[in-house]
């Protein structure tokens, strides 16, 4: 039987997720032995853009060229897996999506870049806004063990099972002191998807929500808790939209659960 073919692609993002794949040093040979890597521009030469079994796509979609590229990948791929928080939620690129793009562009570039094709961008959006996404491996960047587990599961013919619960649960497994309760820190653990092993809280840094929201994230309750602790509405909204800016400001403030629909 032919080895399953894969492609790894990057749109707007820092390429950190792709780098983390390359950093799977102990497993990289096993992965390379198990799959046929048709395209992975960051890691190899001689890439072929053909039909593939699984596409891993990093980054948000922020211009027409990328949109076309993504549609083309979707067309060629059996399964499309979003890797990283940008591809899943827009990530930090979408942080200021509430500012009109024209204003943002002018603020950043002034008039100097007008002829540069990179200037032609729109509000960055997650892959799911453009194409059907079969699975998301969230994280900023993705966690190596999760990537390997996901690949192994996909090779076996099943969608991976990654944690769906909130970071607090993992933080409890680590027996950390609760930074939100005991130290009144601004922690997004209760609304953020677990999977990182509560890396930041285990080092006394509150969760910034870099893995994006859990299914049914109760933003309303989180906002109330933070307001009670004395954080301002503006600060709360700013923190919450850092990685999940594509969730509307209304969702962040209203008494509303934010439901997500991709495994």
């Amino acid at each position, binding site marked *: 039987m032919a080895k399953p073919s894969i492609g790894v692609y990057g749109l707007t993002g820092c390429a950190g997720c792709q780098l983390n794949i390359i950093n799977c040093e102990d497993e990289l040979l*096993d992965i390379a032995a198990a799959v046929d890597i048709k395209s992975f521009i960051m890691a190899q030469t001689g890439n072929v853009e053909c039909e593939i079994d699984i596409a891993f796509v990093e980054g948000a979609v922020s211009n027409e060229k990328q949109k076309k590229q993504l549609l083309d990948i979707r067309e060629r791929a059996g399964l499309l897996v979003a890797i990283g928080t940008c591809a899943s939620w827009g990530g930090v690129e979408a942080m200021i999506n509430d500012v009109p793009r024209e204003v943002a562009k002018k603020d950043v570039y002034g008039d100097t870049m007008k002829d540069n094709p990179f200037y032609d961008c729109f509000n960055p959006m997650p892959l799911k806004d453009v194409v059907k996404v079969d699975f998301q491996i969230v994280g900023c960047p993705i966690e190596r063990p999760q990537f390997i587990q996901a690949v192994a599961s996909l090779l076996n013919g099943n969608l991976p099972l990654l944690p769906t619960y909130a970071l607090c649960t993992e933080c409890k*497994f680590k027996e950390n002191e609760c930074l939100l*309760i005991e130290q009144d820190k601004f922690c997004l*653990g209760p609304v953020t998807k677990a999977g990182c092993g509560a890396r930041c809280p285990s080092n006394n840094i509150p969760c910034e929500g870099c893995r994006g929201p859990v299914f049914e994230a109760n933003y309303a309750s989180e906002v109330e808790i933070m307001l009670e602790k004395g954080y301002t509405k503006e600060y709360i909204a700013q923190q919450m939209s850092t990685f999940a800016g594509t969730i509307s400001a209304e969702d962040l403030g209203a008494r509303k659960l934010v439901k997500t629909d991709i495994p």
Partner: protein
Amino acid sequence: MKSLRMAKRHLPKFLESLGKWGKVYVPVKLGKNSYRWEEFDGEVDNIALDALRTVIPAKKFFYKPREVMFEYDKTNGYTQACAECEEDVILFGIHSCGIHSLETLDNIFAGKYVDNYYFTRRKNITIVGTSCMPDKHCFCKSMGADTVDEGYDIFLTDLGDDFLIGVGSSKGDDIVNDNPDIYEEVDESTTKRYLEFRNKRDESFELVLDTSDLPTILDFQYDNPLWDELGERCLACGSCSMVCPTCYCYNVDDTINLDSETGERWREWDCCLFRDHALVAGGHNFRENQGGRLKHRYLHKQQAYLGDFGRTACVGCGRCIVACPANIDYVECLKAMRGEMTSA
């Protein structure tokens, strides 16, 4: 029961002696106001003797937050994996509520189908309990878990200069016999001081929950809108269940290796407040809203478990009250259901 007295200055010797029976774990301070079970480093001063509740209860020694149940390969099937089950461990510093909680878990993991993983550890873990003085979140007295007369190997009660040493098992007897010089017989003054301690402790409980008739009351309050109000505040973060010494539900998943041949079957603590808990294949969710999930947790503890085993699945340790980011208070909620004035 055999009782002895030990001057506090002998504690280092006592702990040293414990080491002969396995790895000793003790509560240590962590951050501003939290405690965690850690392996004893030999420094008695590092033990938080005043710790009331560790972030995660002693349950984790018997029932791991995440553990491999089986290793499998596609040709030979499943092989039980339990390397650390056989490790000898001594828990020093577990309180009365913790000992009661183990009894609660015993009921579940025994029965017609015995959970080998749990009971192998239960057999290999030595329990050295210590007395405590309740704070404003302790309600073990209301749950009937404030005192123990069994379920430990040794129990130390703080009597000021001395510890009263209760020997609760043959293994406990072996431990005290290993180091006979550090113990003295109990005398009249010991009894007097014990009674003083007991009365003082008894009077220190600030939080009281009347449990009389609670199952029936909860039945009547099934449609109380408070459940949904609390459900709206609940973040489903799982904290209350993870820190609960009597919560036992778990989830199972299989991971596979890159060879597509071998892998592991895991189980991991779960929580009935999670969306997926009552979800079945095909997408139907038998508990669709958060209020219903929260109610399920409370009813399970105060009604369902009670019906099965004659005691509640709550020992009043107060962990869930402390650990809820949304300030959902278990006792306040149940008081409200009883029609008592509260701020729940």
